[in-house]
């Protein structure tokens, strides 16, 4: 299988605190990977290192056969290939829904206004937010904001979509609408890397589940293996803790 992103020996420290310890990890084309683990295990940091919102302290990130951490590599061009969806949505507050999806295409990808609008509308229809194109972010509910944020990332037509706990900041009744959109996307063969606390969702949608604990990948495998038959003791404990609550 073709590796889209290949991470080797990735390390990240904040001061003396080592958050990621020698991570080896890759994402294949068309694969849906869910990263699970308790808070502080480094899963969000790993995701943020992948698109360089956090600068890794060491290691390599290979994309298209090149290490993007090498000096002089165009980080902004690389970032356009990764769509990022944040926990706090982070829609551009000064733009309406349509412009949120257009502004990146026109300024970074230099697409024409008409083309960008057409593409934006296509993805806004997919997330069922095409009726709200003139709304400002503060006029939307959390679930609606997150769906627009997904459309914004998709409008850049990235190779990989990164989701950083996309439903953690949502009211319970809005989690479903966002997960449904993500489920639909997973069905289209999009490459997705998802940090999540939604175990049921991970079980259902993921091709591969990665369990992180204290800055290392403790276990990874097919969802049925991880959830039904975990090998590591700490995976078992984590699953017992989280699944009991559901």
């Amino acid at each position: 299988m073709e590796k889209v992103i290949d991470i080797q020996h990735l390390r990240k420290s904040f001061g003396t605190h080592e958050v990621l310890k020698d991570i080896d990890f890759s994402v294949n084309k068309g694969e849906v990977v869910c990263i699970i683990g308790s808070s502080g295990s480094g899963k969000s940091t790993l995701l943020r290192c992948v698109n360089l919102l956090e600068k890794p302290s060491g290691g390599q990130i290979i994309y298209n056969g090149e290490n993007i951490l090498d000096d002089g590599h165009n980080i902004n061009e690389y970032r356009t290939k990764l769509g990022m969806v944040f926990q706090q949505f982070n829609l551009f507050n000064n733009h309406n829904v349509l412009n949120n999806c257009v502004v990146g295409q026109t300024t970074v990808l230099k697409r024409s206004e008409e083309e960008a609008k057409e593409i934006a509308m296509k993805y806004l229809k997919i997330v069922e937010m095409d009726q709200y194109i003139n709304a400002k972010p503060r006029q939307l509910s959390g679930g609606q904001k997150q769906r627009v944020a997904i459309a914004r990332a998709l409008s850049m037509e990235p190779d990989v979509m990164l989701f950083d706990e996309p439903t953690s900041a949502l009211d319970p009744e809005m989690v479903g609408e966002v997960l449904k959109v993500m489920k639909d996307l997973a069905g289209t063969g999009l490459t997705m890397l998802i940090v999540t606390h939604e175990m049921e969702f991970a079980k259902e949608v993921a091709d591969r589940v990665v369990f992180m604990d204290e800055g290392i990948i403790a276990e990874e495998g097919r969802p049925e293996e991880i959830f039904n038959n975990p090998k590591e003791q700490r995976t078992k404990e984590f699953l017992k803790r989280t699944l009991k609550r559901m």
Partner: protein
Amino acid sequence: MSFDWIINIISNNWPMFLRGAGMTLYISIIGTIVGTIIGLLVGVIRTIPMPDVGVKRVVLKIVNIVLSIYIEIFRGTPMIVQAMVIYYGSALALGVDMNRLTAALFIVSVNTGAYMSEIVRGGIVSIDKGQFEAAHAIGMNHVQTMKNVVLPQVIRNILPATGNEFVINIKDTSVLNVISVTELYFQTKSISGNNFRYFESFFVACVLYFIMTFTVTRILRYIERKLDGPENYIMYANQMQVETPEDIMRKTKYNDVKQH
């Protein structure tokens, strides 16, 4: 009787008062606009993330130091003194005989610029980090992020502070009379020097100053409200284009009633 004198002074000198008020408004408008532009530029430069190593880091450090010196000097000295130093200093040191109006515009602009730089920097720092991250994640560089995402929000947020600067400028242009700029205070001084009616003349100036500042604050409040737009999104407003604005208004009101 004072009141008669006021009428008398106005009817005899109204062109001078108006010209003075016009000059005051002109200097403060240009000064505020140019100062805001200076402030935006300096604010953007001062928030460029510091690179870890290299020539860029050194250049940026030096630029930052120069800008800090500019801000500290112009914020730390009175404008009346700056006016004297710049106007007479340029003549003495550089041999340039500055036009008084040019000097006035220059002084007010750079002075406002120093204050606005800090206001803008504060505005940029106060923008949610998520906005920067989202813009960077899409692949925007610092300038693109600032232009498309951050500055539009900063400008909205600093509008009250900018209005404040504008009002201060309207009042503080009066100090420019020391370099004989014919603004409202200078004109009033001339008028009262002719008629020796100081209270009545300056009372007229007082009213004129207040009318100017009050109008400006009202206009800015109106712009702020306009920029904020409605709280609720009315979906049918952009779907049924045959609807008249009155229909939309009615529906908005209905929604408001429902909410409260």
